[in-house]
Structures are given as structure tokens and as C-alpha cells.
């Protein structure tokens, strides 16, 4: 046992230098050299102001003139109260399948959507738009989720529905590598396009 102290501690320290220090630092260096944009977290700037990260969803819900993302169940770290799209504390709702909170939340969201969107019926709402995501930071919504929001966005932005439909179509992302996952819309991207349309 005592004779093993040297290899135990030695292997711990040497591998620490290799795997705990060299590996991440070298990878960081290489990544920033080769793919600096991605390595830095895919920041998105508008007029020199950092408005978000391309892959991280944001809370657009307070603004009816933007497209909204999926419900987010993240909380504030300090207060423990709901704080949607809190990237500092990614989290799901953890509501189980027979949770009454789950069902009442969904019903509330449906009601809110119906209230805020002219002409919308429950039968048009995709389930993903009323069920909260796994990270609370889901950047995407389905195409249908974007299309049903057009009447509301049109109402508040005074842009025509057909223009918005075109916008949605132009910002539809195909499956990853053209093969995997689903067709979707990055909400930040769509709203950026919307922003540009409004501010150009």
C-alpha cells in the first residue's frame, strides 16, 4: 500500500497536467484560432451592441411585436421566482406527466395565446409552443408555431401578413446537415430579420 503512494500521487499529478490543464487550454487556443466565432459562443451584434448568442433562446414574450419562443421554466437564482430564458440557470420545469401544474400551465398558455392572437383557435396551436423546453433556453420554434403568431405580430408591427409569412419562410432552417432533426425557426434570427425590416 505504502509502496503505491508514489504511483498513486504521481499518476494523479502527471495526468492532471496533461488532461486537466494542457488539453483544455490547447483546445481553447486551437479553437479560437480556427473557429473564433463559434469558440467565442456565437455572439450576435446589432449596430455593435451584443444582442445575444445565436444558439441561446431569449424571452421575447413581453414584446407582442416579436415572435415568441417556447415557454421557459427557468428561475431566478437569487429570488427563486420565474425568470424565463435565464441562461445563468438553465433548467426544465420537471413537471411529471400527471402534474396538475403541467396541465394548468399549458391551459394558461393556450388561453394567453388565444387572447393575444386574433383569430387563433386551440386546434391550430402546436403542442411545443405551450410546453416548456428542457433547457429553458430553446432557441427554436416549429414553423407552425411561427405562422400562428403572424396575426399578432402583424397587428403590432403593422407589417402585412404576407410579408411576415415570407419572412418566416426565408428564416426557416432545414434539418441539421440537411438530414437530422427537424425543420425549425431560430426565434432570435427571425426577430433580427423582423427588426431589420422595421429599422431599415
Amino acid at each position, binding site marked *: 500500500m505504502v509502496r503505491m503512494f*508514489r504511483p498513486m500521487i504521481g499518476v494523479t499529478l502527471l495526468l492532471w497536467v496533461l488532461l486537466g490543464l494542457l488539453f483544455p487550454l490547447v483546445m481553447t487556443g486551437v479553437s479560437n484560432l480556427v473557429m473564433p466565432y*463559434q469558440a467565442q*459562443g456565437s455572439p450576435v451584434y446589432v449596430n455593435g451592441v451584443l*444582442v445575444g448568442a445565436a444558439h441561446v433562446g431569449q424571452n421575447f414574450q413581453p*414584446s407582442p411585436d416579436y415572435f415568441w419562443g417556447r415557454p421557459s421554466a427557468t428561475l431566478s437564482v437569487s429570488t427563486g421566482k420565474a425568470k424565463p430564458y435565464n441562461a445563468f440557470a438553465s433548467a426544465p420545469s420537471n413537471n411529471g406527466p*400527471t*402534474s396538475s401544474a*403541467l396541465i394548468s400551465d399549458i391551459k394558461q398558455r393556450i388561453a394567453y395565446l388565444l387572447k393575444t392572437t386574433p383569430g387563433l383557435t386551440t*386546434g391550430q396551436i402546436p403542442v411545443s409552443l405551450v410546453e416548456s423546453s*428542457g433547457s429553458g433556453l430553446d432557441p427554436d420554434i416549429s414553423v407552425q408555431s411561427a405562422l400562428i403568431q403572424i396575426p399578432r405580430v402583424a397587428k403590432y408591427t403593422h407589417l402585412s401578413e404576407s410579408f411576415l409569412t415570407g419572412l418566416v419562410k426565408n428564416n426557416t432552417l432545414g434539418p441539421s446537415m440537411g438530414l437530422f432533426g427537424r425543420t425549425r425557426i431560430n426565434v432570435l434570427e427571425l426577430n433580427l430579420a423582423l427588426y431589420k425590416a422595421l429599422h431599415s
Partner: protein
Amino acid sequence: MSLSTVLTWIVVLAVFLITIKPIGQYMAKVFTYQPTFLDRPFGWLENGIFRVIGVSRESDMTAKQYGIAFVGTNLVWVLLAYFLLRIQNILPFNPQHMSGLNPLLAFNTAASFTTNTNWQAYSGENTMSYFSQFGVLSYLQFVTPAAGGAVGIAVVRALSGRKLGNFFVDLTLVCTRLLLPLAIVVTLILVGQGVPETLGAYFQAHTLGGQTQLIPRGPIASWEAIEHLGQNGGGFTNANSANPLENPSAFSNIIETISMGLLPIGFFYFFGVMTGRRKLAWTLTAVAGSLFMIMLALAYFPEVAGNPIVNSLGLATHGNMVGKELRFGMGGTSIFETATMAFTTGSVASAHDSFLPLSSLSFFIGMFLNMVFGGKGVGFLNMIMFVIITIFLMGLMVGRTPEFLGKKIETKEVTLASIAFLIHPLLILVGTAIAIHSPAGLKGVYNGGPQGLGEILYGFTSAAANNGSAFGGLGAALPFYEIALGIVVIIGRYASVMAMLLLGQSLLKKKTVPETSGTMHTDTPLFAGILFGAIIILNALTFFPIMALGPLAEQYLMLAHHLF
């Protein structure tokens, strides 16, 4: 099934199928010290390490020495990690000024990462400094799976009639020859997909909606790579691989899924090459593979059908999207979750607590069995344990005392296999019973009804299986769970591994009985069927009551639209 699901599954499964042979053969070369193409970049490094610590490839250990080296080194890691986590506030690479961890959380985290469980009672993005993330936790995510793999390798050596080898040599070689090279490749692919790899501080974004958003960054890609290649599963952030920072696309999701399975599956073939019984390796792979497919189906179809209570609301689409990310699709999510439960990784790309009961059953099956490939090496040992019990129970029916690999299975082997078999349900059921019996344990429950029981059960099962995922509703940051689960991960890790190590040595010492037509052959479809049946029945008998009270009860209540 959508085209995207089919494609995703086919690609992942095809990669597993294609790589099993080359990885197994490559591993056999590495661990019999034959030359490989990586000698040039890493050979000098390894030789240097061996010289400094005073071991050589020839210094073979006994099972006891190997076990002591394994446990002793793990102890060094726990102490080191505990110490560094406690004082992370005064260490460098702490741009967000995170404070040092409290003693209980530091213990729980050190124990859980050292045992390769990676259960997290904290949220990474708001608790850990960059140094703790890469200098402590990411480091442990290299060496602890390597240590588990080393034990598996030692047992395979014993089963193949070789001496056990040296723990420190195996540990180093798993790191340099398997994990590190793969990690470099995977890191770069993930960065390409948009996973950050930086030491820069978190972003403060001013959103279009006029709010501010603090966006965490860090050396996440290198973390993700080893998290999955080592079947670790500790997330850089709380939401783990559901977080777009860790897993930004359906393709990165596939890469992470594949990373989890490469080595555990290859390990099966490694055994085949080492023992010269490739057919047996395929047989065992087929058994584990069928279980994997059953788990996959269970994790997919109920989710696509959706929650009947929600379906009754009359929305446009069905399908349970609670806790799921849109970009992966149902197919990508289900295969990631199946992989993470099968290979005992424990990372998640969605919230397990929000899965429907039958899908939860799939997760429980993965952790109960703990050998649907499992963590590399360790999962294989569990498979061998079931093989030995099965052979012993059924093998008598051919009229010979049971034998495996030409070695007679006698009292000692049966005792050790029984111990290894017994520990798992013991930890899970007794742990859950204690938690459910005590107010401190009940305090952590989030969901009502059977799902609440499931949360506690999932916690202890995950700890015992060294999986690390959770029914996230459980308040694991309570002292009760930090201590109880900390103890369970330790026993779950070492007790069964030691038993299997001794079992390997005991078989090694035995004379080999030649195979005849009177021997029960273990490399046939018949045996695969028997093994499959025995595994299902033995585990069903053990866990059926608790499954009846948990997921099955939840399923029936859900069908009855019962809410809690």
C-alpha cells in the same frame, strides 16, 4: 416515424456497428502492448510518466493489488477534488467570482465525479469557476472512466488467461490511447457546431426586447467531448446537453450520442479479441443490443403518442414536448436518452422527470440492468456477472457442472457474482425505502403521486448505477441526499467492481476444461436467448413491485386522467 428519426437512428446505430470491430481490435493491441499508430505522438509521454511514477508494463499486479491501486488512487482524487472545490474562490480562472463550495456539496460532488457518477447537486453555470470546471471536474471525467475501464481491462485479461496487468499503466493508456485522441477530434467537431470553447467571461447581452441576458460561456466543447466519451454525464450547465450551449444542433446531438457508445460497445469486441472468442463477443453484443433497441422503442413511441391528458386539450399536434428541445426532434432525443441510460453516461438532452411513464420505464431498465453495454469496462463486468449467474442457473440442465470460457464455475465464483448482483438492488431499494420513510428524504420530492416515488427511486438508482442523471424535480441539494447519494455512489462503484476483479482472478487460476459437444456453448443464438431471458426475469423479479408502484401506477393513473 419521421424520416429524420429513421436517419438519425440509422446513422448512430450504423456507426456503432461499424466501429465495434476496429475499436475492439485496436484496444486489444494497445492493452497487449503491441505497436499502434499512436506510439509516435504518445509513446514517449507514457514512458516518461511510467519512469517518474516507477512502474512498467511488465509489473503485473494481483487482483488485490489492482483493487487497492484502483481504490487508493480514487481516494487521492476525491481528496484533491474536495480540496480544490472548497477553495475555488482563491484559484485562477474564475471570471464570474464564484465562491468556494460548502463542505457537503464539495463532498457530494467530489464523490460523485470520482465514482464516474457525475450526479450534480449544483448548477454548473452559477456555481463553478472555469478552473473547477476544467481543472477539477473535466479532469476527473478523464481519469475516473479510465480507472473503471482499467479494471474491466484487467478482468478481460484474466478471462483471456493473461496476468491482470498494472493499474497505473492501464489507467494511463486508457487516457492517452483512447480518451484523449477521441476527445481532441470530438471537441473540434463540437466547436464547429457552435459549442463555445473559451476562457472569456460570460456575455452580458442587451436583447432586442429590451432586456438583459447573462449568457454563460467557458471551455464547454472540451468538457462535452470527455463528458460523453467517458460516459461521465456531468453537465457544464444545469440543463446539461439540453442546453444549446452544450448541444446546439441535431448533429452535435448525434456526435455526443455516438461518443457515449463507441468505447463501451467496442469493449465487448475487445473481450472477443483478447479471449479469441469473437463469436461470444457478438453474442453478448446481440443481447445488449436487443435490450438497447427495446429501451429505444420504449423511449420513443410513448413520447410520440403524447400525454393523453394533454392530447385531450385539442391542440394541433400530439407528442410530449415537455422538457424537450425542438432541434433534436423526437428521434434524436430518444436515442440520446437511450444511449445515456444504456451507457450509464447520465447526461441528458431533455428532462427525464417529464417523460411519460413507459419511457421512464426504459430509463429505469437501463439503470437496473447496468449492462446494456454500460460504462466501458464496468458495464461489461456486469454483463459477465449476469452471464455467470445465467450459466450457473441454466447450465446445470446440460448435465455438467457449469463452466464459462472453459473454467468451472464453483462456489467462489457464484459467491462473488451473487455479491455483485445483490449490491445493486440493495442500494437502490434500501436507499429508496429509507428516503421515503424519513421526512428529510420526502422533503426533496417535487412531483406528486407515483412520479414522486419515481424521483427518489431514480435518484438512488442513478447513484447506484453510477449513471448521474436525475428526475430533476428531486431536490438533490438537500443535505440528506448529498450524504445518502454520496455513500451510495461509493458503494455502488467499488463493491461490485472489486467482486468482479476477484472473480476474474479466481477464474484465471483455474484449469481450462476443453470444450466438447457436451459443453454448453455460450456463443450461440440459443444462449443469447437464454441470457436475455434470464436477465429480464431476474431483474423483473427484483424490481417489479417498485415499478408497479412507480411508472406502472403512473401510467394507469395518467390513462385515467388523474392529476396530482
